[in-house]
């Protein structure tokens, strides 16, 4: 018996498909939260004071 072929991790043009699948598992509101959290992290790393 052959094992089922695993889903590819990257597309041929180098896009990380695991990130896309993870984002698609979230609701639109959760995706927006991910983006907002990322922005806060980036700005904090850049030393800018975040408004909370």
């Amino acid at each position, binding site marked *: 018996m052959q094992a089922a072929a695993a889903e590819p991790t990257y597309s041929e043009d180098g896009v990380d498909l695991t990130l896309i699948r993870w*984002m698609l598992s979230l609701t*639109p509101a959760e995706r927006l939260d991910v983006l907002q959290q990322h922005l*806060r992290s980036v700005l904090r790393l850049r030393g*800018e004071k975040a408004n909370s």
Partner: protein
Amino acid sequence: MKKPTPDFRAILRILREHRVDFIIVGGVCAVLQGAPINTFDLDIVHSRKPTNLDRLIKALEALNARYRTSGHEKLKPRASHLASSGHQLLMTLSGPLDLLGTIGHGHSYEDLAGEAKELDIGEGLRAQVLDLTALVRIKAETAQEKDKAQLAVLRRTLEEKSRS
């Protein structure tokens, strides 16, 4: 104006409270539909009907919007600016906001409305968002070298969505 941390929901809430007709496009639109990309500004295409421009101006006053282009930081957007097909790059109390009269090869709010859908974006807010298929098609119309990597992510997101 001190540089604020972008808070997209805060901007969208003010626009909705002022009953502004608009469609979210660009990076936030892509993220809401599952694309793992980053963006620091909110791009919207607004209706340029006079009644909507009146509401938009009031919303921008509530957001204390100013141009963010160098040398124009104290300039407030006027209805005549917003009536144009051009792009108004603003800074607000809740971060950067780009008001786009048209996108791609001249697509206006009215042109895009049939390809927009309303999404629940959390905290009791709903907003019109350009369908990802249309976003990819329009972005490809005017894509420059810097846009190609993001376009690849958007196209792969569309493929994965079609499989799920």
